[in-house]
């Protein structure tokens, strides 16, 4: 640093801590709320310090039933969320790797057209074509199924571009060396390309996992059967119970459980997460 002004440094630290506290505030509150019995909320404001009913609430929602009109326990919905998140993540990565591979390492007619078709998906987020997409999926009989939850979301221009970028940086001589070593397209793909792209894949994995886990609108539309509810969308169903009957402690516990996996991924794999975020925007 150019100048050493202790008070400036102090202010910086203080501001950052304040920022952290503000950012953490709602989660803190939710955590506190989840430790009080449901009855505590009817009588007035949310308690500000931990209660003693925490274990009980958490156990109930996690293993018995999520409550507020949903009989399924959270762990089942967690499993659904996991299936959907992993399905979307692996699906996106797999088909993007393959298309980027085709576009970079082969020459064929309409190559550019294919590239543009994939690019178009960037311009068509689910949110703007909700109704017709729903109709298409309904026509294909994919409502209330894992396929319906994942398949329509796995086209990915971003991932394809990212892998294309990554492949373009691989020196041509390496490809030639592999050809001389007797590696055909598939061997080259699995033996050379995949291992060389593994950090990119991992970084993208983190971003896509969060994306998949946090899907809200899509599962909300196409699941009507509890057995396929995902955790994030279940909150909406829980909130639609009559006002007086909402068990806030259970909602808070469920909310916290719903955000736990992706938050853990971000914190645990911070480096990959940051890389993925930056790469995805290039």
């Amino acid at each position, binding site marked *: *640093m150019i*100048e050493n002004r202790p008070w*400036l*440094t102090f*202010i*910086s*630290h203080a501001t*950052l801590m304040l*920022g*952290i506290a503000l*950012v953490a*505030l*709602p989660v803190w*509150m*939710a955590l506190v709320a989840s430790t009080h019995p449901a009855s505590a909320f009817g009588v*007035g*404001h949310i308690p*500000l310090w931990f209660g003693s009913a925490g274990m009980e609430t958490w156990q109930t929602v996690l293993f018995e039933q999520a409550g507020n009109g949903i009989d399924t326990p959270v762990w089942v919905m967690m499993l659904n969320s996991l299936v959907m998140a992993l399905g979307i993540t692996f699906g996106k990565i*797999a088909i993007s790797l*393959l*298309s980027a591979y*085709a*576009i*970079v*390492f*082969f020459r*064929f007619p309409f190559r550019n057209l294919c590239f543009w*078709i994939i690019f178009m*998906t960037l*311009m*068509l*987020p689910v*949110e*703007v*074509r*909700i*109704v*017709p*997409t729903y*109709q298409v999926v309904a026509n*294909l009989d994919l409502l209330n199924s894992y396929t319906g939850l994942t*398949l*329509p979301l*796995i*086209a*990915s221009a971003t991932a394809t571009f990212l892998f294309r970028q990554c492949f373009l940086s691989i020196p*041509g001589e390496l490809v*030639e060396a592999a050809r001389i070593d007797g590696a055909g*397209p598939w061997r080259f793909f699995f033996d050379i390309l995949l291992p060389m792209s593994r950090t990119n894949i991992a970084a993208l994995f983190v971003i896509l996992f*969060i994306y998949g886990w946090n899907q*809200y*609108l899509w599962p909300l539309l196409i699941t009507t059967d509890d057995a396929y509810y995902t955790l*994030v969308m279940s*909150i*909406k169903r829980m909130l639609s119970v009559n006002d007086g009957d909402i068990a806030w402690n259970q909602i808070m516990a469920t909310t916290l459980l719903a*955000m736990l996996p992706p938050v853990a991924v971000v914190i645990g794999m*911070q480096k990959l997460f940051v890389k993925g*975020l*930056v790469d995805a*925007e290039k």
Partner: protein
Amino acid sequence: MTVTFPQKGLPWLLLLPQLLVTAIFFLWPAEQALEQAFYQEDAFGLSREFVGLENFVYLFTDPLYYQSMLTTLVFSFSVAIMGMSVALFLAVMADRVIRGKLTYQTLLIWPYAVAPALAGVLWWILFDPSMGPIALWLGSAGVDWNHYLDGNQAMILVVIASTWKQISYNFLFFLAGLQAVPRSLIEAASIDGASPVKRFWTIVFPLLSPTTFFLLVVNLVYAFFETFGVIDATTKGGPGQSTNTLVYKVFEDGFIGLDLGGSAAQSVVLMAIVGVLTVIQFRFIERKVQYS
């Protein structure tokens, strides 16, 4: 890069999954939306009638639609500007500190991983007029908070919830941008006698402008589309129409109002908007690539 494999059929096989998914779940629905926008369909989908541009005419003469546009603009720019200001401020502070930078970063970026719907629910309860601590505190400070009734307050609430989630993203990019500012420039400015604040506004901030512009576009896109969950889990567009953004309206008119033609016409308009935003974003990225 000129080295390629000679196979001719294989690339099609490789592209097939992506192209199929794109065609079935993206292009086909988009085409359907285009088509439906020119038809009037009854609520049960039993009969439909070609109505030409009527859906669009209706849309663009509907004051509610203009109101929704305005709501979207207010909402999006509030989210973008608020999120960016707070994040920039925190990033500048984080850039200053030497010790604990990574810890601060960790503790600031995790909200990125929280689903928008959940973010909405968390703040919704903090501000709940009957039990939320913040609403109570505001009440004792003389502000009568009730986002169930007051449209402006509902808007403030969804803006806060949406911003909260996006700060982490802006923070990361601003911090990276700040760290890329050459030390020598700042040193030169301080030798020229500029105070830290002046240095920031005259040297650092202008150098950050590519990052700022990029984030502005990304934040607008985020506020447009990805905050659907925030609104749906909390205000559901209300009270009245006060938080009914364009994206939410497509959903509401289509799924709840069952006005398929009107919803499709809105979809078409939105696609055009996303198209423009995407092109802007792409242009910008191209430029960024050229510079680097």
